[in-house]
């Protein structure tokens, strides 16, 4: 199987649906340990991204990811904007020129996305951020030999749930120190929706 423009567009469309459906939930998670804008930020950013992608006919996956990256960076408004924006921009750069991408390129793209997020946020694993979902997903992708929707979805879900036990040392939640424990990280929950949507797009294309 190859990941093509249709997969890429379905991915973003599905991610947008899940984020809009859970906008208030994301905001409530951010109210508990942040500033309460995560749902609003993600809802605005993904709505604009879907609108932007509907304006063009795309030939390469890379171009879809590039436009998604630029829109997320300028429209989200919180830390998740430059972070998710950087993730998609790195994926775009890693897959440049390919109309449809094979599994090894896909893995490389997501690897570079995680590296980009780490650099942009000056953060690493275990700090109760979206990296705690993205990084385990990359590890599972590397272990597998082909696209596997269920593996992606399950890994992201388990990793998202595990952020509850962590103490935040980056982002707004870090100001709460120990008190951030016992709450899910908002950016990890939206990252789970993004990977859940990726899994949906893989299943639809199959």
């Amino acid at each position, binding site marked *: 199987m190859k990941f093509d423009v249709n997969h890429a567009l379905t991915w973003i469309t599905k991610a947008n649906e899940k984020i809009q459906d859970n906008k208030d939930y994301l905001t409530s998670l951010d109210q508990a340990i942040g500033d309460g804008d995560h749902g609003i930020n993600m809802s605005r950013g993904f709505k604009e991204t879907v609108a932007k992608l509907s304006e063009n006919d795309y030939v390469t996956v890379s171009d879809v990811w590039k436009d998604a990256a630029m829109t997320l960076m300028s429209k989200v*408004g919180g830390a998740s904007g430059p972070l998710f924006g*950087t993730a998609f921009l790195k994926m775009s750069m890693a897959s440049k020129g390919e109309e449809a991408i094979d599994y090894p390129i896909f893995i490389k793209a997501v690897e570079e996305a995680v590296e980009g997020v780490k650099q942009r946020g000056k953060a690493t694993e275990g700090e109760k951020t979206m990296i705690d979902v993205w990084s385990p997903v990359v590890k599972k992708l590397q272990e597998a030999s082909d696209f596997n929707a269920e593996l992606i979805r399950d890994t992201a879900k388990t990793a998202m749930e595990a952020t509850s036990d962590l103490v935040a040392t980056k*982002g707004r939640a870090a100001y709460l120190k120990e008190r951030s424990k016992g709450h899910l990280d908002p950016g990890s929950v939206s990252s789970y929706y993004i990977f859940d949507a990726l899994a949906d797009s893989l299943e639809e294309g199959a």
Partner: protein
Amino acid sequence: MAQVGIVLVSHSEKVASGIKDILEQAVGEVNVKAAGGMEGEIGTSLEKIQEALQNISTSEGALIFYDLGSAKMNAEAAIEMLELDNVHVVEAPILEGAYLAAVEASIGKSVQEILESIKKEFPEKG
């Protein structure tokens, strides 16, 4: 002669423009732009930061001061996207740091000299 530029990135439009007022009141002509808020709300905007960088003189370089989290990430992204040399995100309290920079810029100090003063004055941040 052109001065070192200053860009103020805050989550609040009022905070950024308020700090700009303080600098202008004390120093007079400053090469400074405020980039605060996101579409009228609390947040930070990559586009606003890019615009600010394009609307100050950067011939002598520029310094960006920020308040929290995404302000720094967006400032760094803006510098990368515009491919600017000699523009730096500064680790210092936004008001005090920008004030020091404005005073020094007004007496003709270079970016490097200002960065050294900031490091001496605010060793704890970053």
